[in-house]
């Protein structure tokens, strides 16, 4: 069970969280103007990196916030977490 640093609540056990998939997948501002292929990519195409991965988590059994998290998919080490809507840089 990972320890995840919630940007609000601090380090908490993984079972308080729910994974939210790849981070920084932006919903197109005007979906109607997006091609079928681009829309399908938005819906279904995700990275599957070996190593550094920016992903979303929600502290569902805590403050309820969605946030972003940089985790190494090989070691499971989390380098840092940052609030949704920020780049994390």
């Amino acid at each position, binding site marked *: *069970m*990972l*320890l995840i640093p919630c940007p*609000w*609540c*601090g380090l*908490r*056990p*993984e*079972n*308080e969280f*729910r994974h*939210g998939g790849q981070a920084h997948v932006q*919903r*197109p501002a*005007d*979906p*109607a103007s*997006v091609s*079928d292929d681009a*829309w*399908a990519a938005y*819906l279904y195409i995700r990275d599957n990196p070996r190593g550094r991965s920016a992903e*979303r988590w*929600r502290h*569902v*059994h*805590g*403050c*309820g*916030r*969605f946030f972003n998290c940089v985790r190494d998919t090989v*070691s*499971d080490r989390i380098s840092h977490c940052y609030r*949704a*809507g920020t780049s994390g840089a």
Partner: protein
Amino acid sequence: MTQPFRRPGGGRIDRTNPIRFNFDGRQLEGFAGDTLASALLANGVHLVGRSFKYHRPRGILSAGAEEPNALVAVDYGPGRVTPNLRATQVELFGGLSARSQNRFPSLRWDAGALAGLASPLLSAGFYYKTFMWPPALWRRLYEPAIRRAAGLGRAPRAPDPDRYLHQYAHCDVLIIGGGPAGLAAALGASVNGQRVIVCDEQAEFGGSLLAEPGVTIDGWAAPDWVAEVIRTLSGTVTLLPRTTAFGWYADNLIGLAQRVTDHLPDGDASLPRECLWHVRAARVVLATGAMERPQVFPGNDRPGIMLAGAARTYLNRYGVIPGRQVLIATADDTAYLAAADLHAAGVTIAAIADQRADPSGEAVEAVRALGVPVRSGTGVTGTAGRRRVRSARLSNGQTVACDTILMCGGWTPSVQLYAQSRRRLRFDDTAGVFLPEDSTDSVGACAGVSDLATILSTAIDAGGSAPRAFEVSGARALSPAAPPAAAAPHRKAFVDFQNDVTTKDLSGATAEGFISIEHVKRYTTTGMATDQGKTSNLNALTAVAALTGHPVSAIGHTTFRPPYTPVTFGALAGPYRGDLFAPIRRTPIVVPDAVFEDVGTWKRARCFPRTGESPTAAVARECLAVRNDVAIFDASTLGKIEVTGPGAEAFLQRIYPTDVTTLTVGRCRYALLLGEDGFIRDDGIIARLASDRFHVTTTTGGAASVLHLMEDYLQTEFPELQAWLTSITEQWAVIAVQGPRAVTLLARYIADIDLGAMAHMSVREGHIGDVPIRLFRVSFTGECGFEINLPPEHAQRVWDTLLAAGATPYGTDAMHVLRAEKGYIVVGQETDGTVIPEDLGLGHMLSARKRDFVGKRSLDRPDMCRTDRLQLVGLLPGDAATVLPEGAQVTDQGRSPALGHVTSAYYSATLDRGFALALISGGRARIGETLHVPLLHGMAEVAVVNPVFLDPQGERLRGRPGPRGPQQALAPLAVPITPDAARAEGVDMAVLPPVKRLNIRAGAAAASGIGMAVGVLLPAAPCRAMTERDRAALWLGPDEWLVLAPPEASNLDAIAVKGAGDHPVSVVDVSHATTALEITGPRAAWCLNSVCALDLHLSAFPIGACTRTLLGKAGIILWRTGAETFRLEVGRSYLPYVWACLEQARHAVFATTIVGANNS
């Protein structure tokens, strides 16, 4: 004479306390302090089991966790037979009853041993090659037969009567292993008030020191030094004996399995049998020691052949000699220590065969000086003896008569846990073993260090104190072992004893082209038994390296996975089984006569059979009551979300396909919720209570996921919208009142709402009797109907009142029939995650005016526009009595592929016939056709029809407003039933009285104004609570607080809104959504930590800390109100589950009281 192989003195057993036990029906005697293995050896019993594959007689090989052979079933009583226990780890107690395994009819005469005669045929992979044809026989004949013939112990069939607990613990340092390295590390760590846990798998701390009576440390004899250290540590560190660290998981989470009562003769009902610890350690020190390797030679598996170090342990720790005439086969100096000790105990050492060309050094010379013949450069080439070894042949041609062979192939550091921590091992060419690449946290033998003084001084350093020297005397200097040598392929030279893998199997595997060690492992099964190859892995690697011509470092090692030794399912499940497996939620309306079904985590009433009535008849009667009279339904489980704030409308407009801007205050609308992929996720009602306030319902099972999906969009895609979502599922109980007499019935109790004037799909706030309600005029039955949302504590009296007034209760079964007659869908039944609104004929529910909503773009993708998509239709079987099976395939004359499938099928009492809904390819164009449903016996003809079977014009929805009668009173409010306060030593718990609860959402700018208004400041710091006289405000999220106030503060909602001034704010009354529990006492935190993973130490979770978290599998709000007092806010329906979890957890306080090991 009993115990003929017990020495008259020595060892750590209690000779004044003899213990009778039973092995395979034989009454034997041992002493307190024995293991089952040492007691058997004291009685001269070496034959203890039959091997897995060839049923060869096997004896005790080791003295510890690595034991591959001596697996027994211990019978602790009905349902308590534990198979596959290592006799070397089973503590002896009075009345212990153990059985050998894998033999029939008896251990001495085993029919399965015939397999041994066929062993030339049974090489690795023979199953795969031999039992290939015909394939059908594999499942029916081959596999069951092979499983019976092979396999180890049998699991009991009776339910496990014991209790098992979990415990979460946090510490600064966790030390794994209580031998010399672990104890010195504990001394080093137990300073500065650090939280330290030391665990050891044995009953006694001390490890190898317990078998070293000749060694002194700082002037103490080694075992006395151990006792002294334990005395020093007691009270400052948590000492966990009988506790195996079985797994190292992410972020220093270590799993510990503590055997609490298995060593007690009569158990102890007040204690759990086992406790599974989840230890989160800032730092872990590994002091896991090393294991001795067997030598690989033909016939190395006969009873009487054991590891030299094990023999030394049995002698020095248990006062037991393994035999009278001993041959030693070694590649390492430590066997000479065993030789010297056994010689001193009067055992004849017939010879020492040392593989090394020129063994020399202090230990060797000491044994030579005793006159023991040492044969250098010599190995064993064969053995004889049926149930006990009788003689051995040496490579120099000599045959040595012996009743015992002690072998030592060197020592393998126990790096299993280190490897599980996802760090690399390096191969040390000199020692020929794998060692931690990062040895900062490995101390002692597991780091490849063997000198005791070095171990102690480095371990105290690793513990956290400055290194200091220990004065060690009496330990002999040891010269290096010979690197592991590969043995020639031979079909009786066993590498893996537990899975019967020989050097011949390994050579066969490499000859067949298996080069990767992971492949060799899987093909031969070496290292794959319950012992996970503890004694065999390195020998297997060495053999494969020699066979393939590669160095061992290039071969690498197989992956080390948890668990280190087997962990019982009982311990893993802990308290979460039976009724606690998952929360069982019930609504506030108690209906004793109902038949229940599980819907999500809820128990819902299916139907209400009267005495002597079948469930089928009850459903038919209930349906007719709805159609012709009036009936009531408990819909409390529906998910409910209050959507508030100035941006609420805009938010719902983007989420739902429907046009929310046209929904006026006081109206409600049925709405589908789509995923971004266009598929239907959920459905429900949107009701507009005010311009900035909506009451949205979800399905019962979809409540949590819908809220999650909405929060996702609100927080991450539309954060600019000033809207908030608050779950009010538990705040409101719901009673549906449906049927032509619904208006007449309700009008007797509702004075402030004109029911007759309420349009279908409208909502009003008012009262039923004196109870405040939100009244929905909605229908899921096709009849005129209402759904009364009311505070849960009043639900029962309103329900009882309506029953007494003649309403018929109906359950979910009738609800399903009624809605299907109208063609209303159920999400998850008519939808399966691939269904879009158009498929269900609900395309008209999508607003054409809106350019965007969640899912809209996907509905234009080409696949969504196909005309052959599965579409919802009705089916009428040709035979009116037929009720089709749900899921049945719908075909044209039985031809494949199927055109679709039946999604719902029932008997309709109203139509007096069976009917069904189905999804059929291009279904709407097939209306009027006849199709066919293959059944178990024959084929049903079905007519494809419109899916609305009843009242297609919707005339019944209008109802029949009856005469307005006089107002009548509700039944009185019953005293709510809550659990009695429970008291136990160190922990009390009680349900607290009701309070006013407000969920307040606002930005930081509004917080101070709201705080002033409601009489308690809203804390800005995360996870902190503020209190002011009789009120409290708990931080729940960056814009979310829970305000608690006395129940009489009834207009606090309005006061809070006013306090926000011009700032947007959401205030939702959640007074009834949770119930408060208080748990208090010196062990309250311990108790909570049995079911809650947070660190509740005062330094980590101080007074005033509060947070949402998990208790078992239930979400709660936890608030520390005092050093020893916690307040829990528990969802109303979760209270019984949480209470029961805490009841179990209160027993966990044992953990602080049984830290003493046998040492104390």
